[in-house]
């Protein structure tokens, strides 16, 4: 039962769902999307349940065909999308029919994009999830990134009107909020002044596991080895080089470097989507404030998903016409 045919694939295209839950104690990374809100919006635009699997791509999408009519949506950032010779927009749903070719180009202001297809990618779940974990070769399509010639099964689709997102989900921001700890006391006031006072550069050394940061060096006053403990999404670990590494979706479950702080959950997708070479600055918030931000964002995302607009209604209201 073939559904989606990969004709060409960008350098890092993987099957992802919301990730593996409850197995961190067994050494299993959660994996899942680098930008969960964009992933969830993509699924919602094609009327998929939130846990359905979709494709995640870094930079460039690829070229795809289908063996049955589907609805699809691309999210994550500004990106050129063509169905045969017709350009279509991200952040809204479109039809794709057998015989047509979908080409997803390069993201212009973002790093991670999502292609959701009605019915979802129906690869077999592994340990309760379809998310690909590249380092252990688990889940997704044979535990690896997609390549030309791959075919992926699709699930049954639910019919729905064509949908689009009314207002852009995320605006650019200068600051990445962090909560100090768990090893904040390994770093003295001078290291903290550097951490919060100077810009860091988003390094091109980045993947689904980790984001390296260039810029000032942070030195621990108690050395850079700890007895290993658990890691969280957004843990900022500082190895002996003094160059901070932010742990991302595919991180190891435990680690032995001191962690000066943890990126607030709401800002981790923003960091993931910041193009390489850009400056970021860290701003300290309390855990309570970071929790408030996360709770507020959860509500805002719920609202955005519940209020996706029917495309025809928008076009009529604006006096615009489909091209």
């Amino acid at each position, binding site marked *: 039962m073939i559904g989606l045919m990969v004709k060409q694939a960008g350098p890092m295209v993987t099957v992802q769902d919301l990730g593996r839950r409850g197995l961190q104690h067994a050494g299993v990374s959660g994996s899942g999307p680098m930008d969960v809100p964009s992933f969830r919006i993509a699924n919602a635009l094609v009327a998929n349940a939130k846990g359905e699997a979709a494709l995640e791509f870094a930079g460039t999408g690829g070229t795809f065909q289908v063996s049955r009519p589907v609805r699809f949506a691309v999210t994550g950032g500004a990106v050129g999308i063509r169905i045969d010779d017709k350009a279509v927009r991200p952040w809204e749903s479109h039809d794709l029919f057998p015989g047509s070719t979908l080409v997803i180009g390069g993201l212009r202001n973002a790093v991670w994009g999502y292609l959701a297809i009605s019915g979802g990618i129906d690869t077999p779940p592994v340990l309760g999830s379809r998310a690909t974990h590249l380092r252990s070769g688990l889940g997704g399509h044979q535990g690896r990134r997609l390549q030309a010639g791959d075919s992926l099964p699709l699930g049954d689709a639910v019919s729905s009107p064509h949908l689009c997102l009314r207002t852009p989900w995320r605006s650019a921001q200068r600051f990445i909020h962090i909560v100090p700890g768990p090893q904040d006391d390994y770093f003295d006031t001078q290291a903290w002044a550097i951490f919060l006072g100077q810009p860091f550069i988003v390094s091109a050394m980045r993947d689904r596991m980790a984001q390296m940061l260039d810029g000032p060096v942070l030195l621990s006053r108690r050395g850079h080895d700890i007895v*290993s403990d658990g890691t*969280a999404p957004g843990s900022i670990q500082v190895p002996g080089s003094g160059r901070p590494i932010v742990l991302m979706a595919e991180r190891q479950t435990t680690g032995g470097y001191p962690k000066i702080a943890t990126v607030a959950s709401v800002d981790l997708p923003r960091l993931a989507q910041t193009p390489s070479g850009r400056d970021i600055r860290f701003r300290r918030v309390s855990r309570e404030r970071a929790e408030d931000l996360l709770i507020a964002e959860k509500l805002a995302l719920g609202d955005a998903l519940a209020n996706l607009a029917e495309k025809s209604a928008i076009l009529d209201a604006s006096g615009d016409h489909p091209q």
Partner: protein
Amino acid sequence: MEAEAVTFPRIVACGDSALSVELSDRIDEVLNDRVIALAETLTTNPLRGVEEVVPTYRSLMVVYDPSIIRGAVLTRELGKRLRGLEPSDATARRFTIPVVYGGQVGLDLEELAAMKGLTPARLVELHSAAEYRVYMIGFAPGFAYLGGLPDILHTPRLEAPRQRVEAGAIGIGGKQASINSVAGPSGWRFIGRTPLRLFDPDRVEPFLLRAGDRVRFRPVGQDEAAELDGAVAAGRMIMEPA
């Protein structure tokens, strides 16, 4: 600036959706028992909003959903549980792991023995006489960090990691012993292999070991190893707690 003294236990934030109950900053069997006991109370008597518990050498990471339970409330609840904790190692599971020492996978056996001034046979004897504690599972699916390696076998890791070491390889890294759960790069030294698979996602029980288990190694010959290999390939779980 003076490094202020840290007192344990303490409960520290790991962002807005996880916290760490730190009992120490060192490796200690008694404290590891308490970490595991605290994890068990959260499994048997769950707190609403707690999504994961991750026992490590000396701390328990607790992952939570702040829209169900706030970190401050969770911290108080965990503090209460910590005070009422009664760890017991009577419940620890004990396993014996068959090992073929040496060979292609155990390629460091002879060199390691020579480094220590031991015969390979004596090294095997020492390694298989000890009882090991699974302090934690981490790094990779099902990878067990084992404490209890005899002092004489403590050995620094290799300068340059090997690109691929097989699943089932029996390793030594620093003061720790290990059993590789998945194939991958490693800078540890390897002295043998077990036919057992610590991790198999297709098995009913994907993970053989968990934190708090006790492990012994039993030397086996090629013939027995071949039989065990066959049983593992047939998908049969071939190890039960002793």
